[in-house]
């Protein structure tokens, strides 16, 4: 009896060894961005490093860190990940508004976006607004940080006056770091004296 059990156990072990569950790889798929291009991701694992930089470039990474590059297609991504992509939050949208010369009041034209923003808020789940103020490059960096923050706060106040819940709005000042029109330092440029209102 005993030798039979040992032989049977041995055969079972052989069968199990020959039919192991294949280890599932982790997967990475680079997608086209909203503009139709693609950025890139650097894939690092025990077995090396690869850069994916084309839309639908993909990599499988085995549990022991081996990287195998693959290609996906729009169709294969939709089949495997369609439900996941459908669950994504709506993408942020943004408007740029400009200030009357020497004030923190928006131009009349800029104030017309408020109605559009309210419509956008009504369409979104748990919407939030970010207001980011900007300056031109006249003056010191620190002073422009403060000025851009004041501009953002001024826009927030006007959004609240227009009937938007203040608790949904956050403000930031980017100072002169992100000019719309690049200039040399100390150049006055009206198009850089602006605020960006984004709804996310």
């Amino acid at each position, binding site marked *: 009896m005993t030798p039979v059990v040992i032989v049977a156990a041995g055969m079972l072990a052989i069968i199990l060894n020959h039919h192991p569950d294949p*280890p*599932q*790889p*982790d*997967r*990475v*798929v*680079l*997608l*086209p*961005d*909203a503009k139709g291009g*693609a*950025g*890139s*991701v*650097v*894939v*690092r*694992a*025990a077995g090396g490093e690869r850069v*994916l930089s084309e839309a639908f470039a993909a990599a499988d*990474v*085995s*549990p*022991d*860190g081996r*990287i195998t590059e693959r290609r996906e297609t729009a169709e294969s*991504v939709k089949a495997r*990940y369609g*439900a*996941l*992509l459908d*669950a*994504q*939050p*709506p*993408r*942020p949208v943004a408007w740029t508004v400009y200030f009357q010369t020497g004030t923190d009041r928006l131009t009349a034209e800029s104030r017309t976006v408020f109605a559009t923003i309210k419509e956008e808020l009504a369409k*979104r*789940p*748990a919407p*939030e607004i*970010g207001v*980011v103020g900007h300056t031109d490059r006249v003056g010191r960096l620190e002073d422009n*940080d403060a000025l851009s*923050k004041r501009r953002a706060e001024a826009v927030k106040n006007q959004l609240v006056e227009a009937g938007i819940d203040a608790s949904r709005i*956050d403000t*930031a*000042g*980017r*100072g002169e*770091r992100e000019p719309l029109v690049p200039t040399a330092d100390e150049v006055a440029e009206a198009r850089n004296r602006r605020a960006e209102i*984004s709804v*996310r």
Partner: protein
Amino acid sequence: MNKLGAAGVALMAALAAGNLVAAEAAGTVKTVRGAVTVERGSQKVAAVPGMRVEAADRIATGPDGSVGITLRDQTMLTAGPNSLLGLDKYSFDSTTHGGELDANLKRGSLAVISGKLAKASPESVRFRTDSVTLGVRGTEFILEAAGGQ
């Protein structure tokens, strides 16, 4: 402890769990389908749209669950069914756009649309599974972790 005291403690625990008061929010839950929970420390609550998410939170989805989260820098994270996502580190300075994002997908699937942080400080944005680490240059991608399957 008398009955009234025990009821009071239970009520306070329920209130604390319901609120999950955020020190500084990393982002906000925007979409929820099926069963989704947010774990913070020892607390665990069902996710609803509008709930704040913080650094160190763990987000879990059930077999029918998915959740979409928009972080303060406009990074968008969407987890599919049977996922476990740890937002291990998150900070974002809205003036300089410096900060850090370190997310760990223990199992399941994650769709990412990178935000202002990856654009300004790509070296400080990382997405991980048990076997791979992704560095991100302003982009959209899917990460899937086989862990636990």
